[in-house]
């Protein structure tokens, strides 16, 4: 994992010290709220519907056990005993108090974490494939590149006041687990025909009130060009992005209004003016960063050891969990373990301090001290010996973290909605809980197979509803919540925006409608089809019919 260098450590320490002074001046009345608000937002501190909320950055979703223990400590000491994993792989605390926040930031700094650039019109936390460094599907580990972007974008003087926030996601696998086409810029590490490693750059994707799938800006960019090319793209955006209307200020609108061809020409023209060697980092520096992400020392092991196969035969609960939550690892004898944060009785993405500590211990024992957060609001232990899976499963069960529903109908992405968020139009957590209850039967969930339900509590779409196989948007009219449904969205490498079915529903009607659609799918599906495949084959009409029945 990346360790801060002296410069990073100094920068974060300096920033925390500054913020402590700002909080003190605010509390003493020497700073007005108008003066203080932008300062607290720059440090990830929001004022939400009921209280302050602190958003802690988890760069590219990678954490070590020491950091996760620290998050547990913050949850317990300064919050109400839990944290919430967001769809940008960060962690939010819902109940911090202003005078405590500088101490929280000091604590975070002690484990090389912070809350910088988790708000504001800057380049936000870079998100990443949670299987990075563990999957055989990748060209190379995308995290050194993500780390390079983090260093380059942190407090970047030219890009700290962009027309609007800017989100970058990276992956190195064809199978997209980072939703790169729904980001301002998405980067895929690829090999060109000559076998050189480089980058395919997507631009102008985004969800929110105007959902757009990103388009290819550059088919292939060689490694040394990355930062210079990103600089060119950001400069064009900074220059022409609309500052007159915040709803039209994201790069996706600029790309749409300019047209991808002209936008590309502008970026290339800007790029031609840049001296690449001025911005790019040396191979030695790139190697230095990469060395922090060197794979752990995997033992020479064989796949499917006896300890695993015996347990698979003997323990049905374990075998169901392993089948659904465990993914193939690049090293023989190892596995990638997904830990579901979607048990029936917790809000999606919530994890208690006790559970955080338990997961930290498991990471130490079974996964070289490493863990990941995912944009699907779950956790990953990236490097677990297959022979250890049965014991790990027991520990997960003891911690209440053994839900075997990854990618199933109850593995719902859900934003905080009206229960916490100041921008919400309706609640989202109760909807996810009602769905989890209706489809509680695990056998039924498995019969339904892969299904992605995503719920947002307002048009800002933090719950990714536009790309859910079933997407749900909470709205409100004349004091009553109602829910609009979208069908056919796709968050994978075949990214697609779902289609609105029509008028919205009350919560009860909605859950019945979803069940009707699921039943229709089960009747109509052909061999091997997921809900999404059947929807694509038979179209929206039959689903609408049963949804509005």
């Amino acid at each position, binding site marked *: 994992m990346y360790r801060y260098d002296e410069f990073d450590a100094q920068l974060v320490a300096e920033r925390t010290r500054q913020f402590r002074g700002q909080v003190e001046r605010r509390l003493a009345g020497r700073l007005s709220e108008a003066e203080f608000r932008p300062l607290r937002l720059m440090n990830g501190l929001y004022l939400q519907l*009921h209280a302050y909320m602190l958003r802690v950055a988890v760069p590219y979703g990678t954490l070590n056990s020491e950091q996760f223990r620290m998050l547990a400590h913050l949850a317990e000491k300064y919050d109400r005993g839990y944290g919430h994993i967001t769809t940008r792989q960060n962690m939010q605390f819902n109940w911090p108090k202003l005078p405590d926040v500088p101490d929280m930031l000091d604590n975070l700094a002690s484990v090389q974490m912070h809350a910088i650039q988790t708000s504001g019109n800057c380049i936000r936390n870079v998100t990443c494939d949670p299987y990075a460094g563990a999957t055989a599907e990748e060209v190379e580990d995308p995290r050194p590149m993500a780390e390079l972007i983090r260093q380059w974008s942190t407090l970047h003087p030219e890009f700290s006041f962009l027309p609007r926030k800017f989100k970058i996601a990276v992956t190195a696998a064809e199978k997209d687990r980072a939703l790169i086409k729904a980001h301002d810029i998405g980067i895929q590490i690829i090999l060109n025909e000559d076998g050189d490693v480089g980058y395919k750059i997507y631009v102008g994707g985004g969800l929110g009130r105007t959902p757009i799938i990103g388009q290819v800006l550059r088919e292939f960019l060689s490694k040394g060009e990355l930062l210079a090319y990103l600089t060119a793209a950001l400069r064009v955006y900074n220059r022409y992005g609309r500052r007159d209307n915040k709803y039209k200020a994201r790069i996706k609108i600029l790309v749409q209004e300019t047209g991808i061809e002209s936008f590309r020409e502008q970026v290339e023209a800007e790029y031609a003016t840049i001296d690449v060697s001025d911005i790019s980092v040396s191979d030695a520096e790139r190697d230095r960063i990469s060395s922090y992400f060197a794979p752990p020392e995997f033992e020479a092991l064989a796949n499917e050891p006896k300890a695993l196969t015996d347990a698979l035969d003997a323990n049905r609960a374990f075998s169901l969990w392993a089948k659904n939550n465990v993914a193939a690892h690049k090293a023989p004898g190892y596995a990638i373990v997904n830990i579901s944060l979607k048990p029936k009785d917790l809000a999606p993405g919530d994890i208690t301090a006790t559970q955080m500590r338990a997961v930290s211990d498991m990471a130490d024992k079974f996964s070289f001290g490493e863990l990941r957060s995912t944009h699907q609001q779950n956790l990953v232990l990236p490097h677990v010996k297959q022979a250890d899976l049965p014991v790990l499963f027991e520990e997960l069960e003891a911690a209440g973290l053994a839900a075997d529903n990854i990618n199933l109908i109850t593995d719902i992405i859900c934003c905080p909605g009206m229960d916490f968020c100041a921008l919400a139009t309706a609640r989202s957590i109760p909807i996810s809980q009602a769905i989890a209850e209706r489809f509680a039967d695990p056998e039924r969930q498995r019969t339904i197979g892969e299904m992605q339900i995503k719920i947002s509590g307002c048009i800002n779409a933090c719950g990714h509803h536009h790309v859910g196989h079933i997407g749900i948007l909470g709205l409100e009219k004349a004091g009553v919540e109602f829910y609009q449904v979208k069908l056919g969205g796709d968050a994978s490498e075949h990214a697609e925006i779902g289609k609105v079915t029509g008028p919205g529903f009350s919560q009860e009607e909605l859950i019945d409608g979803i069940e009707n659609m699921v039943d229709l799918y089960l009747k109509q599906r052909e061999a091997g089809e997921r809900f999404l495949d059947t929807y694509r084959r038979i179209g929206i009409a039959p689903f609408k019919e049963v949804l509005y029945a």
Partner: protein
Amino acid sequence: MSTLKHKGKGPQSMTANELRDGFSVWLDENLDWTRDFSKALRTEDQDLIDRMHLRAETDEKSNLVVGIYFIDIEPDTGLPARYREKFRVNGPSYDTADLLETN
């Protein structure tokens, strides 16, 4: 945001958030801030409304509270008219912290 906009007509309450702790508060009959909405002053009396406004502005300037604003109150229920404000009164309908407390 809610489709019901603030009308400024009928009974009003004054709300804000505490600067230190961030919690939602309302002005009560003594023009003190309370975290308990049931104690909130709800009035149509213009003189009182003016005093509430003055008090809130003063307290905002003295850094007790932030983000002061009036909310419409439904005359028949005594509850806030806007859906969002109804929510602020009750707190989250779901909070993992409550689950922890009951265990």
